[in-house]
Structure formats: structure tokens, C-alpha cells
């Protein structure tokens, strides 16, 4: 199985750390990624909001490119790209649509009939590498780290196009993080929208939606939010200062890409994971985790001590009796 890799534009900019950590993690797990030569933008929302065929054409160009280098599957970290590529491929089944796209690409439509399959890097990792293999490779478990897994709204939806995990309650990232030793908090907003690309044009929308997500993570007692989407990450991390915190109580909530935590657990140096490129200091999360661990150990120690004391007492009492009898 030849895996083509489609980084997506933001990987060259605001989500460099996602891009870096993805490659680092894949290398660590021995997943070979073939870059699609001279890949281009999928058009994202602006394209499909303008014309489906245009969006289809921009996406298809890359799938054709992947096929050219002999790949049968394309993996991309970005759900927005994922959604566009998958939707394009899905709609190619329709002759009319295929013809239209063919015209835009100035290519015979039949060439578009059988394009490579598309999947998210997350899917690649959990289905092709497998949790057991990953668990086996974990060097430093994320002990004590309580995380809220946030998948974003389009990673699994609409179900008939995405065909991955449960559209309402996905669990693949939960399982992955658990495998890494992290503690996953129940997070009801796994697929609730963060406000997407409206940060620039309608800050109020993002402020409210992302605020709700961060608030929920806070209330669930999470040390950090873990995401799989550049846009979500930007909204939750970079714009964290802009959001409306429910109840007005703001906290510092680090927002990781799941690949960063994966890399870290696999023992990849932080430098290669771009942790320093996160806006909210990731150290906060790890500090909280450490504290949690310490607290738990203290607790256990205390309990142990108590038990010991009790035993000693009993012993004393016993020997006292002995003495008495003597």
C-alpha cells in the first residue's frame, strides 16, 4: 500500500507544528509518506461555497497527482482538506459532475473515474499502524495528563462521505491517547463546531463557539485539549484570548495536536514536535499532570503509612499483652 501525503496549505504556515509533528511521529512509527509532487490547495470552504465543480477540480488535481506517483491512498492531517478531497472523490461517481470537473481540469473525465482513496492521518495511524503497535512503541507514557479529545466537526461527518468512526461520538483519538498513557476526560463536544474560518470575519461566532468548547474542557478538569485540525487549533489556542469563557472564568488551556503528544510519548525530541510554537504554554499541561501524579503518589503514601501505623499499633498491643501475662 503506497501512501501519498497531502500536507495542506496551513502546514506551511499557522500549523507548521502539526506538519512537523505528523512527519516526526510517522517516521518514528515507520510510516512512509510520499509527498504529492507540486500539490496545490484544495480550495477549502471558499471553493465549495462558491461552486462544487470548482472545489472538485482543485481537489481532484491532487488526487490525480497522487495516482501519478503510484499511490492508492492519500493521507492528510487537515480535516478541511480531507473533507474536500473525500467529497470530490465521492461525487466523481456522478457522470455529470465528473464531466464538469473534467472540463475544468481540461482532462478526459474517465481519468477521474477511479481516484485514490483518501483518509486522515489519524485514520492511517489507528487503522494501518494499529493501537497495539503504537502502545508497544511508547517510551514515555503521558502519565497523569488529563486531556479533552476534540475531533472537530467534519473529521467524521457527513458519515456517508467520511466513512470513519462514529459521526456523533468518535473514539479513535480517545483510544490513541489512552494507549499513550493519557487520561481521557468525558468530553461531550467532540464534534461540535469551533467557528471554523469565521475568526477573521465574525470573531463573535468563534469567540462563543470556541469559548463553549474550552469551558467544557475546563469543567471536565482537563489539563489540555487535543485536536486534529489546524483551524480548530488556531481558534482554541491563538484565539484563546478572544473567546467568551462560560461563567467568565478564564484559564490557560494548552491545545495540542494529537501528533505532538503521540511524538512525545514515542520519545521524539520536543524540538521536532514544535511544542514551542503553541501559543498557550504546553508546559502548563505537563506541570498539572506532574502535580496530579505527585498528589496521587502522596495520597497512596499517606494510605500506606496509615496502614503501617495501624499494623504497628496492633503489634504493640499484642506484645503489651504478652508482657502483661508474663
Amino acid at each position, binding site marked *: 500500500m503506497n501512501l501519498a501525503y497531502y500536507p495542506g*496549505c*496551513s502546514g*506551511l*504556515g*499557522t*500549523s507548521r*507544528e502539526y506538519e512537523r509533528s505528523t512527519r516526526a511521529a510517522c517516521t518514528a512509527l515507520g510510516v512512509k509518506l510520499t509527498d504529492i509532487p*507540486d*500539490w*496545490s*490547495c484544495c*480550495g*477549502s*470552504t*471558499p*471553493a*465549495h*461555497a*462558491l*461552486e*462544487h*465543480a*470548482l472545489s472538485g*477540480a*482543485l481537489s481532484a*488535481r491532487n488526487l490525480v497527482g497522487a495516482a501519478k506517483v503510484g499511490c492508492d491512498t492519500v493521507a492528510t492531517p487537515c480535516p478541511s482538506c480531507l473533507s474536500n478531497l473525500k467529497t470530490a472523490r465521492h461525487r466523481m461517481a456522478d457522470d455529470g459532475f465528473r464531466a*464538469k470537473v473534467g*472540463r*475544468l*481540469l*481540461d482532462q478526459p473525465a474517465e481519468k477521474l473515474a477511479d481516484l485514490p482513496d483518501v483518509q486522515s492521518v489519524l485514520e492511517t495511524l489507528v487503522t494501518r499502524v494499529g493501537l497495539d503497535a503504537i502502545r508497544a512503541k511508547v517510551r514515555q507514557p503521558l502519565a497523569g495528563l488529563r486531556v479533552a479529545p476534540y475531533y472537530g*466537526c*467534519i473529521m467524521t*461527518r*457527513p*458519515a456517508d462521505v467520511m466513512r470513519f468512526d462514529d*459521526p*456523533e461520538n468518535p473514539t479513535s483519538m480517545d483510544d490513541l491517547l489512552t494507549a499513550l498513557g493519557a487520561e481521557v476526560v468525558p468530553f461531550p463536544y467532540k*464534534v*461540535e*463546531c469551533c*467557528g*471554523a474560518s*469565521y*475568526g*477573521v*470575519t*465574525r*470573531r*463573535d*461566532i468563534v469567540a*462563543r*463557539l470556541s469559548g463553549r468548547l474550552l469551558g467544557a474542557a475546563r469543567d471536565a478538569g482537563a489539563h489540555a485539549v487535543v485536536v486534529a485540525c489546524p483551524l480548530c487549533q488556531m481558534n482554541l489556542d*491563538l484565539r484563546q*484570548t*478572544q473567546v467568551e469563557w462560560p461563567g467568565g472564568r478564564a484559564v490557560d488551556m494548552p491545545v495540542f495536536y494529537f501528533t505532538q503528544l503521540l511524538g512525545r510519548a514515542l520519545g521524539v525530541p520536543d524540538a521536532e514536535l514544535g511544542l*514551542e*510554537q*503553541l*501559543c498557550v504554554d504546553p508546559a502548563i499541561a505537563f506541570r498539572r499532570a506532574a502535580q496530579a501524579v505527585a498528589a496521587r503518589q502522596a495520597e497512596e503514601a499517606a494510605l500506606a503509612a496509615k496502614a503501617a501505623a495501624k499494623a504497628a499499633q496492633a503489634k504493640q498491643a499484642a506484645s503489651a499483652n504478652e508482657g502483661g501475662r508474663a
Partner: protein
Amino acid sequence: MDVTNLESVRDDDFIHAVMEESGQDLTHCYQCGNCTAGCPCGFAYDIQVSQIMRNLQAGRKDKVLNSRSIWLCLSCSSCTTRCPNNIDVARVMDVLRHIARREGRVAERGVTTFWDAFLASVRKHGRVYELGVVANYVARTGRVWTDIDLLPRIAPKGKLSPMPHGIQGRDEIARIFQRYEEERTR
């Protein structure tokens, strides 16, 4: 509020156009409201999505195409996922945007301006140049203070590339847009 004459507001061609382009059967909607119930952006809508659907059934073209809602839809697919009648509502919203754009009706200029800036960047470089897009957007809207507060947060992270990442196939992409425009004008 004025009385609505259902006969005179009904535009059947519009209904058929939407059904045709979206491949969705609007008559399947029985107004349970689940799309509205789950819509994350409902609070910002001027017409709730379920009412958009209702207005579509009534063939009220102007009401629908002039709404702000169709531009604020985040394409998150909650509506599609939860529709008990398997209607791809998100796709219908998409199609409404297409039709509105074709007729030059845009109730949320800011949004389309940003999208146009985005696509312009793609057309020019083959890939999106983030700084370029924002700059372009600011230039077109004159909203100079957009996200200025974020600059100190993002700048030191060395993520924003100062230069666009152009690709060899640039003109290829440009031609796609060209052909798209020709098709459209035709």
C-alpha cells in the same frame, strides 16, 4: 408583519433549481427542526435553518437568498448528520450560496470578501498564502484592526511565512479558475 400570499411568493423554478443542484428532495422535510436544534451558529442567524428549509418549500426565493444565515453557515454538517429524513441540509445551504453568488446577492459581504481573498491567493500561487489573504481582506474591507491583538501572540512563533509558497503548476490552477469563469458566464 404583512400577510404572505403563498401563491404570489412561490417561485417553482427556484425550488426546482435548488433540488436539481443539491440533489436533495425538499419535500422530504417535515419541519422537525432538528437542523436548527443542532446548528452551532443558529444564534447568529437571521432565519433559522429549519425555517430556511420551510421557506424553500414555499419557494420564497428572495427571503432565502437575501438572508444572512446562508453566509454564516459553518458547513459543520450537524444538520445533515441528524436529519431524520436523510436530507443533506449542509449541501442545500452550499447550493443556496452558489445561486446567491450567481445572482450577486450577498448579505454578509465580509464573509465573501474573505473567501474571494482566499481564492485569489490560491489562483495566484496555487497554494494559500495566509498573510496575503488577511492583507488582501483588510485592504478590501478597510478593517485595519482585524486581529491586530493576535499579532504579538503569533509573531514570535515563527509560523507565518513572509513569502508565498508558489508551485510550478501555478498557471494550471489559474486556468482552472479561468475555465470556471468561462463556464459560469456561458
